[in-house]
């Protein structure tokens, strides 16, 4: 579809251009209306921005799992949202145990680190089981088949965990040390938001260091470049793939704990679906297969989701904008895949891969 004779303008291109134009106009009108109406104070905007960044860093951590696996296997691990759920849901019991025993109040830092480690361990185990049972046997199958398996695995995991822990919501305990309010640049921000954001950034930097600076990371990059050549260089492909799934799982598990600390709504067995899709959106937004892209995409998506309803939809005069919040991520996903499937940073995704 790329090279057509210049005389024939494809209807498809015309349609897509028109669609692109209309989308841009609609967004601009929304922005214009909101800013001229000056409906919110700068303090309110700041609240939204910080909440968006914290939420976005959680998306970024999950998105890294999609991107890592995609970089190596060129497949979308559709069940990755469930890996995140597994860690978050299992750790709630540990967290509540810590809270009951007073350990969480005494030394919150150690307790939270332990929780993160526990959650990461559970998520890693689930990710590895997934790889071993559902994906490894299908490595050379036609592309549709592992995708369908992943959908199946997603449901199997959701309802397995419902079978384990029941279907009710369970909340993480509130951590006293994270309850206060910080003053950042003159804006009042709940402590938990910058803490989640900074911890996530630390984890992301650690991952970046691992992939770019260690020998194992080098092997990963080599495999993602070319599997056959990497094998010839003596790299154990299976081991690299297992490491990749483990890393993605561990990050998702950590994200699960952050989510528990950050959002009081509680966790339950279906909690992985929306964050999974949104993190995938984030990965695509930054350019799938690209590690800094996933981090950036996650933060950006968090911001869009947090600001979007107020900044664009309200400007267009749509009522009940918060109901449409989940729709925003999907709209971003659809738009980015239509107009720039390689994402913001991605160059690598050619049409053969898409």
């Amino acid at each position, binding site marked *: 579809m790329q090279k057509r004779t210049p005389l024939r303008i494809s209807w498809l291109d015309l349609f897509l251009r028109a669609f692109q134009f209309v989308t841009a106009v609609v967004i601009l009108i929304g922005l214009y209306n909101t800013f001229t109406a000056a409906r919110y104070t700068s303090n309110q905007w700041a609240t939204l921005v910080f909440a968006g960044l914290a939420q976005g860093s959680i998306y970024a951590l999950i998105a890294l799992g999609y991107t890592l696996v995609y970089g190596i296997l060129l497949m*979308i691990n559709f069940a990755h949202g469930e890996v995140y759920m597994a860690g978050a849901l299992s750790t709630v019991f540990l967290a509540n145990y810590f809270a009951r025993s007073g350990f969480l109040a005494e030394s919150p830092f150690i307790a939270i680190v332990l929780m993160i480690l526990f959650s990461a361990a559970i998520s890693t185990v689930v990710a590895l089981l997934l790889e071993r049972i559902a994906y490894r046997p299908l490595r050379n199958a036609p592309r549709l088949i592992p995708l369908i398996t992943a959908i*199946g695995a997603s449901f199997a995991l959701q309802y397995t965990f419902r079978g384990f822990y029941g279907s009710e919501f369970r909340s993480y305990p509130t951590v006293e040390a994270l309850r206060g309010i910080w003053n950042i640049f003159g804006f009042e921000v709940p402590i938990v938001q910058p803490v989640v954001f900074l911890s996530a950034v630390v984890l992301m930097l650690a991952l970046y260091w691992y992939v770019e600076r260690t020998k194992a990371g080098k092997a990963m990059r080599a495999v993602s470049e070319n599997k056959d050549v990497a094998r010839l260089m003596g790299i154990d492909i299976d081991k690299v793939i297992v490491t990749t799934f483990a890393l993605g799982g561990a990050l998702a598990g950590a994200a699960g704990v952050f989510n528990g600390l950050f959002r009081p709504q509680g966790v339950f067995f279906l909690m992985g679906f929306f964050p999974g899709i949104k993190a995938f959106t984030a990965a695509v937004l930054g350019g799938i297969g690209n590690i800094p892209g996933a981090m950036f995409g996650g933060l950006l998506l968090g911001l869009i989701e947090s600001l979007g309803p107020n900044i664009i939809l309200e400007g267009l005069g749509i009522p009940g904008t918060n109901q449409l919040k989940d729709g925003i991520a999907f709209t971003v996903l659809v738009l980015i*895949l*239509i107009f720039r499937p390689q994402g913001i940073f991605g160059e690598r995704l050619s*049409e053969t891969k*898409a």
Partner: protein
Amino acid sequence: MQKFQFKSIVRHGLLGSVIALYFSVIGMVEAFGSRDLFGEYLNLGHLLLFGGIIWSGFAVTTGRRKAGWLTNLVSATLAGAVAGVLPLLLVLANRQIELREVFVNVNPNLMSILTFERADTAGLLLLLGVSAAGGLLGGLYNILHARIRKAIGMSVTVTLLMAIFADLVIQVLSNVASRETTKLFYVGDSMKPAVAVVLFAALAALFYARQTLADKRATEGTVSTETKKAQLRTRIFQFVGFGIVLLIAPWVLGSFLSQVLFEIGRFVLLGLGLNIVVGYAGLLDLGYVAFFAFGAYTMGVLTTTGPLNPAPGLFNFWTALPIVVLVGVFFGVILGFPVLRMRGDYLAIVTLGFGEIIRILALSDWLAPIMGGAQGVLKIPNPVLFGVEFNSPERMYYLVLFGSLLAAFISIRLRDSRLGRQWMAMREDEDVAEAMGINLVQTKLLAFAIGAGFSALGGAIFAARLVNIFPHSFNLLISINALSLIIVGGLGSIPGVIVGAFVLVGLPELLREFTEYRLLMYGILLIVMMLNRPEGFIPAEIFKRELRAGEENPAPAKAEA
């Protein structure tokens, strides 16, 4: 001493053990335990619990005929005993700490099932003993002579099915004969043990005789040579018979089972539409429910007697139906347009996004004046044809039957048409197809549009049946359901869609204990199918060739494709 392969015994035993433990901890054993199969001797929970254990006995002896029967039986027993270990540890652990606080389904009820209602050590020993016996059973089955094994396997399966689907059998029996006859065979919904034994023996004898006859005929080399005419005649007979069964089904089955048939029919309709998009054209569409929702909402809004109707009284079901299908086709094209350039996984996720966006919009206050928001569309009248109102499941069944037959007919004709071949060419390789002169834009859009039309038709019938529709009826699960059933049946295969709908939609309706674990089973089924039989139960010819190409004769398959 190579007689016993201890490694294999432990491995298979532990695998069976993990399966047994898994089903226990997620609560399936307990949930199914409330359902007695043969009086109080066996319930569905036992079957689930010991299924994995029997399997380990079976697996450990597979392919080891040379080792001798005694060795095999002992290995199987050992494997069974090993398989009992994890459930045993679960019971022991639960006596020390209250596991229930975390694992909600590890409750006293499960414990009493696992230990056969004995709280002391005897219960534990019994669990281990029964596990070993289960393993022995699996091994025993495996070392039998092939002919006997087949007969026993078949008759056990049939007897179990008769017990598991007791509801169905009872319903049919009491509609055909009388309520009293069913009491001869069943108490409540469990089969009388004596009846089970007699049934099993009779079936075993029957299957054995049939097998012997078939073997004899095979050795004599007299293959029945039917003429083409005779084959055609049997085909026609089968066809007519099938048609009669379809027509009289609701009156034999009664109201509840007609409702089940209606559900199956609805998903056959959806599956046939999705089959065109996924099976023929190879476009994995996870937002298929969107078109179903469009159909239901269009039908609802146009015919409702409530305040949402823009033109009250103008449309009835039949006049609205063409509009509904056109709306479906229109949105098929509209949503198809942006995704024309995507392939595989990306297409799947974007269409999933579309489906969710539609649901979120239907639920929102923004579109509430048109689509009713969270309240949904109420008071949709039932269709009326020649003064007969389609107000009962039995009558709605005919509507959905007609819709499905129409869809099946169109699917078959399309498959064998030029367009169908274009779809399949596109599915195999888009670039090559385009090089061959296929207009990809048109071909893809037609696939989306026709699939959406079927789905909208299904939605319209659904709305007319339910009377009230709500946004939450149109969630991702419908797409997943439809996708699972066409995959389990066989992508691109029309009989596959029907079988898939019966297995995935019909069976769970009949097994009430199953409802809670339905999606779990779907998930596991999808994985197992993809790992072992990606072409489905009733594969389409072309897929069989494609997927099995590498295994048997790669060269000719490649030439054909």
